[in-house]
């Protein structure tokens, strides 16, 4: 099985404060992993490092068999779709242009019909010329899901992908993830608090086990006792 993403002994700091210590992970094709843990335990920071958006304090990251960190040897500029907790959109552009922004960022040029089909699938039919600013939070999230169906990425790093979605939206989200995993062998790493997603994922990782602050506080409590 192809290992799409791996990291060895990854440590992260926020300022001078250690956040995650010696975290290792292998993410294989068609695999889904849920990152769980309380607020501030480093889920978003970890996803940003794995997406190549920020740097870790130590450790190694490999993506699609190429090293990303400490030295970027990736032949492909990038490799994955990172869905941030706020849907990344060009707010003053219309919906169809936002979809084009998503696909063309990945070097894909698709016929207009595919964009319309994708919008139809996520329940945004006949809204293609509406500006993204006028959409509700859930609709913005649905738009990013429509983009996923068009890009068909190898890796999805999703930070709270169900934020703002209703129960139908959550089912749609899971449906799209599952379809991508089956047809495209997409690997999925999701940071979430949504129980439905946690239950659906094949593996769960509690980041609090790698949190230095947590270990220290446990030690402190033990010492006090």
């Amino acid at each position, binding site marked *: 099985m192809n290992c799409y993403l791996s990291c060895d002994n990854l440590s992260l700091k926020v300022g001078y404060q250690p956040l995650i210590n010696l975290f290792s992970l292998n993410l294989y094709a068609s695999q889904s992993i849920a990152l769980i843990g309380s607020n501030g335990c480093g889920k978003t920071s970890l996803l940003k490092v794995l997406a*190549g*958006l920020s*740097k870790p304090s130590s450790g190694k990251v490999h993506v699609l068999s190429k090293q990303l960190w400490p030295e970027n040897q990736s*032949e492909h500029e990038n490799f994955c779709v990172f869905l941030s907790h706020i849907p990344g959109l060009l707010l003053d552009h219309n919906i169809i242009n936002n979809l084009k922004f*998503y696909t063309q960022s990945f070097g894909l040029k698709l016929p207009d019909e595919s964009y319309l089909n994708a919008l139809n699938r996520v329940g945004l039919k006949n809204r293609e010329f509406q500006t993204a600013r006028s959409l509700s939070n859930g609709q913005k999230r649905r738009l990013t899901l429509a983009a996923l169906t068009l890009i068909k990425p190898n890796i999805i790093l999703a930070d709270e992908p169900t934020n703002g979605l209703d129960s139908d939206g959550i089912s749609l989200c899971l449906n799209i993830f599952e379809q991508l995993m089956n047809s495209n062998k997409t690997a999925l790493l999701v940071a979430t608090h949504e129980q439905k997603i946690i239950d659906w994922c094949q593996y769960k990782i509690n980041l609090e086990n790698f949190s230095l602050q947590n270990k220290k506080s446990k030690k402190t409590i033990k010492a006090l006792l």
Partner: protein
Amino acid sequence: MFKHKNSLKINIKTWFFAFLFINKLSLHSAWVNKTSWFSVFIFAITLLIIFPFGLGIEALKRSDVQIGCYWIINQFVIITSVSRMFSAEQENNALDFLLSSKTPRSAILCGKISFTSMQILSLQIPIIFFWTIFYHVDEKTIFLLLKTIIPVTFLFNIGSSSLGALLTCITAKSLAKEILLPLLFFPLQCGILLASVSISIQVASNSLLGTFSSDAWWTILFMYPIIFTVLGILLSNILLQEQ
């Protein structure tokens, strides 16, 4: 050898397409935000009108004042354009998506530099027109002046945009970016500004600023875009990354 489905190796062709994509995207963002272009333009025209009242009509006949005013107004146009270089993408985390995509970071930076310099030029063309009217630019020297000002302005725009792109990325994460950007930008931009003013003055009054020769000023004017664009390409991975 491991192969993945959406393989897209970076070569000159893909880099150039990404560069064009960023330009197209920025043009579209500028088009949907036409009001900001018009507000900068109206602001520049207001300055053009206000300066003659402060300087007096006599002063306006002196070529050094005419040229100086033109470049001061350019400075306002440039800082307002440079500070909004990434605003459309930064507003709602779209930049994070773009940075994690297959678009090369150097293409993002170069695309932004080229688009910003073109955007500034689109403001300068009508400004030059109004400037020749409001500042009584001599009919005999107007063509000579335009012949020099157009290439100087072009180089000045690229130089200032490339420097601005670098500093915008550096100051992007700072809480005081609105102050920090001009604070770093203006002192570093001094060289290209003085070169542009000096070369323009030479056409109008046949004198140069300081003891530098005309060639020295032209060298400065050419070196700024080259140095800062190359620096931007080399440092694009670091500049467009969270620390």
